[in-house]
């Protein structure tokens, strides 16, 4: 959820809740006040009516101003009690509907006779007033809320503008590029954020540079002594004075040093991919690339009598990526399909729109599926490889947000690469 949406929602819910409570209280207070007002009026009328009782015997005093209705009953039994206020409904003949009235009931003595008097007053005018005032208030609240929304937006753009610009710049930041430089900001917290970010990105860019140099140097520094060992052992092999035993030793040295140099260059490659040092982008036709690599591996495929079935979709699958990384991806997947195949097995290469599916026969994994793409995980029975091929594949996929999935079914390993996430 966006910051603006979130804050607007929060303000809306909170103020609605507040206004609701306040509205109820206000409404009640207003109602009570108008009722008290009405009661006071009725009380005043009582004095007037009391003065007239007896003059108009058994006749309602309608002519008195301010009284909507009046009933006077002569009582045989004398009752002394206080006046009582109450609400009642009465049928209005003019408008033919029930209306609410407030009344005061009291007893009066005049000339030895007792009367029960009820003075009625319509609540209509006060209700109307309360209604109007409430309506006005609601309208004000709505207007106020609208104002808050607009104000909120305005304040937002003003207050958080720098913050959003900072986010935009951070998004564009890449470790391989320059550290982020943001302009000075007048809000103290944002200024602190800016300083922290600049310090951090500077550090990141610096670390990256150092790591890159370190990898470069390590590779170089390791390759040179390796080259020396390799060349010296090769020279030694040429000697006529060596017997079978010495040659065996030399062969072991030779094999190990070759492995070591391959390991070194592969690890350097992994680091380079991780560091996003492959940034060239070119159009790669996947089926052409597959054919090219199959050509290179023809001997290995033939040696193990592996059948290759190609099911290429008629639409060519074109990828936008670094040529070197594309070679790594396809090369390692194919190599994997050949190495972990069985003699006389098969490889199925299928392209679909946005997808490459590679199947190969082979015995099940000797380790768990989750470890398949991790470094140095390999079939323990096999020697000579390091289990780095698939982690290279994974790294390439990560670089371009490709999704690679693995399944094993029916003695067949299936790798699916989805190029469009």
């Amino acid at each position, binding site marked *: 959820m966006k910051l603006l949406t979130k804050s607007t929602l929060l303000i809306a819910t909170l103020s609605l809740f507040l206004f609701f409570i306040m509205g109820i209280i206000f409404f009640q207070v207003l109602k009570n006040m108008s009722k008290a007002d009405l009661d006071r009026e009725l009380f005043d009328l009582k004095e007037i009516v009391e003065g007239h009782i007896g003059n108009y015997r058994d006749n309602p005093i309608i002519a008195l101003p301010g009284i909507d209705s009046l009933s006077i009953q002569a009582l045989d039994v004398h009752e002394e009690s206080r006046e009582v206020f109450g609400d009642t409904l009465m049928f209005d003949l003019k408008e033919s509907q029930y209306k609410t009235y407030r009344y005061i009931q009291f007893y009066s003595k005049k000339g030895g006779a007792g009367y029960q008097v009820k003075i009625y007053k319509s609540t209509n005018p006060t209700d109307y007033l309360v209604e109007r005032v409430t309506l006005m208030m609601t309208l004000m609240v709505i207007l106020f809320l609208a104002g808050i929304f607009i104000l909120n937006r305005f304040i937002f753009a003003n207050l958080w503008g720098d913050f959003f610009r900072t986010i935009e710049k951070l998004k564009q930041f890449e470790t391989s590029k320059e550290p982020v430089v943001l302009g000075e900001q007048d809000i103290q917290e944002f200024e602190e954020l800016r300083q922290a970010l600049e310090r951090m990105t500077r550090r990141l860019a610096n670390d990256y540079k150092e790591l890159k140099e370190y990898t470069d140097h390590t*590779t170089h520094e390791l*390759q040179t002594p390796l*080259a020396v060992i390799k*060349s010296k052992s090769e*020279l030694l092999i*040429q000697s006529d004075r060596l017997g079978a035993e010495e040659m065996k030793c030399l*062969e072991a040295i030779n094999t190990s040093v070759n492995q070591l140099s391959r390991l070194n*260059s592969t690890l*350097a490659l992994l680091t380079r991919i991780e560091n996003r040092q492959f940034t060239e982008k070119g159009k790669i036709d996947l089926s052409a690339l597959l054919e090219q690599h199959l050509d290179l591996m023809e001997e290995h495929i033939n040696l193990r009598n592996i059948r290759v079935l190609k099911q290429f979709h008629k639409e060519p699958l074109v990828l936008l990526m670094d040529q070197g990384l594309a070679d790594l991806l396809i090369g390692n997947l194919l190599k994997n399909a050949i190495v972990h195949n069985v003699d006389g097995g098969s490889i199925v290469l299928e392209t679909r729109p946005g997808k490459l599916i590679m199947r190969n026969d082979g015995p099940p994994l000797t380790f768990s599926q989750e470890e398949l793409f991790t470094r140095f995980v390999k079939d323990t029975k096999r020697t*000579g490889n390091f289990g780095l091929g698939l982690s290279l594949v994974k790294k390439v996929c990560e670089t371009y947000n490709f999704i690679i999935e693995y399944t094993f079914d029916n003695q067949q390993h299936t790798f699916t690469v989805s190029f469009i996430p």
Partner: protein
Amino acid sequence: MQILIVEDEASLMESMVSYLALEGFKCEKASDYHTAVCVLDKHDYICMLIDLNLPGGDGLELVKLARENQSESGIIIISARNSIEQRVEGLEAGADDYLVKPFHLSELVARVHSVARRTRMKGGEVLSFGVISVMPEEHSCFVNNKQVDLTRKELDMLMFLMSNRNRVVTKESIADYLWGEYGGAYGSYDFVYTHLKNLRRKLQEAGCPDYVENIYGIGYKFSLDKSS
């Protein structure tokens, strides 16, 4: 048969000089940029081997300079740096080939021969060994003047062995030379054996004596002596 080697690692330089000497090459040595510039015109080199990381200067600059001075010489860059961009940069500077350290000396010799062939003889010559003659330009091979049908890989393998005649070449070096990075990637070098077996069979069927000698399982030696 002069070769210029520009390399700052003394041991590696020595190995290269010794191995190339076995092939009959004489080497001029330079261990830094300035020495290299000084001896650049000293001889008419067949081939120049230049390391990119040099004390006193950039190897790429040296490649450019060498290309200006000796247009007839082959130039091979030998470098520990192995990225496509660096290869392209090296080749654009005027190098004919790019060899990544650590390399096999036998591979170096084969590349020197092949670069020398391309630049000196314009590729039009015939390589011969015993009763075998190979015309690299036409991709054809003859035994006793009769054409033998070889695949591209078999022909490359034959030429590699011929370049390293009388030397022991390891299985790894054959694999790396012929299959590049796929050579060592399979953990077994059986395919080298299979290929060599096919090559030997084809040559022998054409009436060629078996020049290949198996050396203690470490590799092979291609020589006329064996047949005698």
